[in-house]
């Protein structure tokens, strides 16, 4: 997946889907610039419950090559509409335990307002359109793809019976 990310001279790409633990430090270094007075770092963390139901762990899956392109498009959109500086987004895939970082968004901007707003909007957009899926494996052993809202509400989801 790294070969699609050669837009910076360092070894860390701005946009990545990875099965390795996420670390904000190199991403902050990547987006910093002398005219950027703010860097906002957002980490999305695996929570121990969803709507009060206990979670054992999560599994993330991505259409990896497309997801990298979409992350880059979303960052381009944020830069154009909010006037931020450089943006880096890394998303984890595979099995994630409670407390691990699932997604890291790092935004540089001249001032903090744009940086905070871009980070929040980017997280919304990633959840809307990035081809990345989350499977909740509940503490009771059942599992389901989050986002399967209609099937869940209709009680037709086969995934509740999966062993994971």
């Amino acid at each position, binding site marked *: 997946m790294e070969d699609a990310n050669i837009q910076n001279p360092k070894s860390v790409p701005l946009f990545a889907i990875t099965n390795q633990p996420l670390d904000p430090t190199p991403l902050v270094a990547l987006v910093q610039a002398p005219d950027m007075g703010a860097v906002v770092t957002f980490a999305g963390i695996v929570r121990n419950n969803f709507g009060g139901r206990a979670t054992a762990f999560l599994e993330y*899956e991505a*259409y990896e*090559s*497309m997801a990298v*392109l979409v992350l880059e*498009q*979303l960052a*381009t*959109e944020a830069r*154009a509409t909010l006037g931020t500086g450089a943006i880096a987004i890394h998303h984890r895939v595979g099995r994630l335990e409670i407390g691990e970082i699932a997604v890291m968004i790092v935004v540089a901007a001249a001032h903090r307002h744009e940086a905070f707003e871009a980070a929040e909007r980017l997280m*919304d*957009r*990633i*959840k*809307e*359109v*990035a*081809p*990345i*899926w*989350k*499977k909740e494996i509940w503490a009771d052993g059942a599992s389901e*793809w*989050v*986002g*399967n*809202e*209609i*099937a869940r509400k*209709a009680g*037709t989801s*086969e*995934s509740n019976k*999966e062993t994971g």
Partner: protein
Amino acid sequence: MQITIRYFAGHRDITARSEEQLELAPGATVGSLWGLLVERYPRLAGYSGRMLYAVNQEFGTLATALHDGDEVAFVPPVSGGTPILDLRFTILD
């Protein structure tokens, strides 16, 4: 023409495969392909109208024409849960 279809998340569970190749007649679109897949895998029908569509890793629509060698993915609802078909960023392509 030969098309590759990629299956993810709930779609992979239903089809029990992560991808397959299908031979389609000329003139096929994303929509006509979806119709074929629903016939083949009836449990996919619940996703009709609440997905995003990708052809060669770019977002398309049901009307997008397919060509030999294309890779198509029907993108089931992602982590946010609510399918919001806002594709405005595609104009930045």
